[in-house]
């Protein structure tokens, strides 16, 4: 390989520019968006106490045949408070979708009071007191929200709060695709 003298001068410039492009690309990415290991995998199996009836349980087998939005939340989590009105509003509008609330490492009494006071978007509410379902879902904190399709497969994991914009730009197109 022979490069003429003049062209050789541009080699460092090209290397520098490609390095710059790579780093700029990296700068624009959100480091908090850790890829989820559970996307395209079945929803983990679980049987957990019902939040509103401690003697009853909610199990993963009940979440079949339809599209489910599984929201991991807690009263100790400020973004969960912030997204709650949106969840109530969206659940009233999107009646084809079943909303499931996983009350994550929370005080059950406080959680019940919260939902009774501010509206309950969830058809199923379950308690994950020890956070074991959270670990099975690969949850790092709250809020996190999963879309589950009619075959029981996790289609998407959302980290952070949901509002109308997030719903319209991310959730609605994905759900339209699997409906």
């Amino acid at each position: 390989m022979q490069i003429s003298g003049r062209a050789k001068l541009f080699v460092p410039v090209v290397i520098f520019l490609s390095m710059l492009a790579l780093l700029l690309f990296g700068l624009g990415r959100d480091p908090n968006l850790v890829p989820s290991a559970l996307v395209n995998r079945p929803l983990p199996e679980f049987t957990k106490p019902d939040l509103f009836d401690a003697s009853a349980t909610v199990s993963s087998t009940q979440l079949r045949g339809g599209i489910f939005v599984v929201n991991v939340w807690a009263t100790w989590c400020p973004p969960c408070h912030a997204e709650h009105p949106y969840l109530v509003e969206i659940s009233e509008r999107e009646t084809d979708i079943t909303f499931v609330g996983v009350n994550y490492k929370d005080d059950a009494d406080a959680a019940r009071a919260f939902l009774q006071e501010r509206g309950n978007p969830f058809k199923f509410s379950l308690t994950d007191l020890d956070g074991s379902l959270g670990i099975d879902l690969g949850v790092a904190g709250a809020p996190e929200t999963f879309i589950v399709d009619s075959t029981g497969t996790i289609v998407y994991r959302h980290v952070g709060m949901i509002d109308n914009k997030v719903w319209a730009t991310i959730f609605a197109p994905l759900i339209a695709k699997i409906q």
Partner: protein
Amino acid sequence: MNKFIALMLLCFSLLATSTFAAIDDLTFTSPEAEVRYHQLIDEMRCPMCLNANLSGSDAPIAADLRAEIFKQIQEGRTNPEIIEFMRARYGDFIMYRPPLNRGTVLLWFGPGALLLAGFFILRRMLAAAHAAPATEKLSTEEMQQLNSILDDSKD
């Protein structure tokens, strides 16, 4: 007196920095189990904090995962089983040392390849410099010119 107080304050500040982020009170079945526990929580990354391992993180999820690892060690699970359990839930991200696969080839061998390329280029440059005639004699004319410049600068 003031010096004494200052010294005491300094001592206390040293004490404060030596406290660790996470200390769990655990009783292990064997010393080996304890060693494995510390190995695993040092190798694994906290899923919430991007750059802290499980042993160094105060995040609630890190405490939960430490408890999960402890539980699994007590149940007699092997290290590969525990790592597989974590990786199935949190992906490769949970491991500080990324596995070697198609997506990480560049990460593993990129720096080495760049270093080799650097050596190669350096060798070629040195060889080129060596091959070129090191000194070229000045012609008589050029010698006179040089002398006149040196003479001028002396004045």
